């Protein structure tokens, strides 16, 4: 990708205060760039920090969380000033489709009214112009505009998910964050939604971050993927590179754990489970589950280093240092 990134994340950390006075270091220093029209997948097991990381970009973490790091939106830092600097961009420049969004509509309010809410809040459209804009948005996601006067229960699951995407697009954002947007949907409806997301990035130049635990889904939809583990990016690169030549053992094992419809190879499980992050891990957090560890992995945490243009990995293997 050439040109300036629309959003850059630099060394982002998130901690949560725990009831017992301790801290949970959920996101442990992640960095990546995203260009207009680009589709980046964030993939990893439950609890790896992928949702926490993008909620931080939206400034939507609970009060028990503290954040450090820089987030540059078209070159300007938006994180340092907290809510004051983030809120002008929320929904306007950076919008999100939440996990289970299709089930989060208010059941007693018409769909169109709910989509118009963000516009009215930001003053981008009101009244009649809001209605027109809602119709336009619904058409954009493949729903007839006059259906804005329907109630959520009159929509199927796939249509509600389309409406949730329309809602996120209400203020014409530059970046769309989608958290497991197809998890509860059937595979055919999933394909329809993914096709929609791809066409939005292509036609509107929208940049997309897609969160999922489903690696093949990212392989099919995204240009690049960041594999997250224990709050870090284990590896980032193009989906082709990650598939053909995974540099982190976790990336390789994650592919091997995923059955492929045409595959003949043995599907393996990854023994053990991710570390708890209420204590800082010593050495490499993946060490207990790794099949390619070195001596220093026990004691020294690997650094996130660039191994090729656009390709970075957090692993001692191949690191001369």
């Amino acid at each position, binding site marked *: 990708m050439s040109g300036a990134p629309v959003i850059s994340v630099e060394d982002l950390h998130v901690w949560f205060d725990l009831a017992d006075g301790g801290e949970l270091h959920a996101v442990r220093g992640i960095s990546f760039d995203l260009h207009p029209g680009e589709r980046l997948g964030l993939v990893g*097991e*439950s609890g790896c920090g992928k949702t926490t990381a993008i909620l931080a970009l939206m400034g939507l973490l609970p009060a028990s969380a503290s954040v450090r790091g820089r987030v540059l939106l078209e070159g300007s830092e938006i994180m340092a000033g907290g809510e004051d600097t983030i809120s002008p961009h929320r929904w306007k420049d950076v919008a999100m489709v939440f996990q289970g969004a299709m089930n989060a509509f208010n059941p007693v309010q018409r769909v169109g009214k709910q989509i118009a809410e963000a516009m009215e809040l930001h003053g981008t459209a009101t009244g009649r112009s809001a209605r027109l804009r809602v119709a336009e948005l619904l058409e954009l996601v493949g729903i007839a505009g006059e259906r804005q006067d329907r109630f959520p229960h009159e929509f*199927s699951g*796939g249509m509600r998910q389309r409406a949730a995407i329309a809602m996120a697009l209400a203020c014409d954002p530059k970046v769309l964050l989608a958290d497991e947007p197809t998890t509860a949907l*059937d*595979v*055919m*409806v*999933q*394909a*329809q939604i993914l*096709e929609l997301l791809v066409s939005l990035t292509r036609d509107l130049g929208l940049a997309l971050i897609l969160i999922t*635990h*489903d*690696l*093949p*889904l990212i*392989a*099919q*939809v995204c240009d690049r993927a960041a594999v997250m583990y224990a709050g870090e990016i284990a590896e980032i690169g193009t*989906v*082709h590179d990650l*598939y053909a030549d995974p540099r982190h053992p976790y990336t390789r*094992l*994650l*592919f091997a*754990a*995923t*059955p*492929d*419809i*045409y*595959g003949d190879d043995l*599907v*393996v*499980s*990854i023994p053990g*489970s991710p570390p708890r992050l209420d204590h800082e891990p010593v050495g490499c957090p993946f060490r207990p589950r790794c099949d390619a560890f070195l001596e220093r992995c026990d004691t020294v945490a690997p650094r996130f280093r660039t191994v090729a243009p656009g390709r970075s990995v957090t692993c001692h293997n191949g690191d001369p240092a």
Partner: protein
Amino acid sequence: MSGTPLLEVSDLVVHYPAGKGKVVHAVEGVSFSVNAGELVALVGESGCGKTTTAQSVMRMVHSTAGTIRVDGRDITNLSAGELRPLRREMQIIFQDPYESLDPRFKVRDTVAEPLEIHGVPREERDARVHDALVRAGLTPPKLYLDRFPHELSGGQRQRVAIAAALALEPKLLLADEPVSMLDVSIRAGILGLLDEQRRAGLGILMITHDLSTAAHYADRICVMYLGRIVEEGPAKEVVRNPQHPYTRALVSVVPKRDPRLTTQPQILKGETPNPVAVPSGCRFHPRCPVAQAQCRTDDPPLSTARDAREAGHRSACLFT
């Protein structure tokens, strides 16, 4: 495989009343069999009737017509009391191991409960519980016996549910989406465990929406659409040489691991119709990309697919 199948379902029909005199056609004439040592996957989208079929086999729902034979014996019209001894032979595990285990029961009690219900003498139970935990990969068992579900991971919970199902040494196991709630990294462990039991002679009917999992672990796949099996055959043959237009579309939209495979997904418009109003003729015709006039009137039966490369590959389409 010769002889009597372990499970034989013939022309199963399940209708539910939908109010106002309407009827939900949940299952409409489904036939298949499962042999000992065989894993058969029923695959399809929500509402295709796969779970209703499984529940009907377990006699958890009443069937409207058709027969269900276990080991050659017709169980379709047995009373609850007559069914009870047969329940030892067929067990079920569910999708959500967080909900299927009683949170107040220790692992020991969960696995011993079916033994108690079926009158296994008390002195035998400990050994049977021990064996079942070993078979389910929870070793050494003493590490797990006194734990409560909340002290176990999702994968361990599903193993406890499997141990409880295996404790009675059933011949047939129904697995309803056994891994869809679990993290990818541990799914292979659970599926491998089921595969081991299959090799040891257990017959398994797996309900899943995931064609990739079915392709890997099943011997045969039955693809269901709107209450019917529209295609069936050897698992790899069905996914690599799909014949029915619905299966072709389904296989084409399953995300593939290899990003270089850029075959155009064939995305069907709309969603599966409501099983209250099943389309006339071939029930797939309104969404079918190759439907002809005849498809609106003729309801095709399952028959040997024209381009089948393996025996037992059948499709319910007038043109394939």
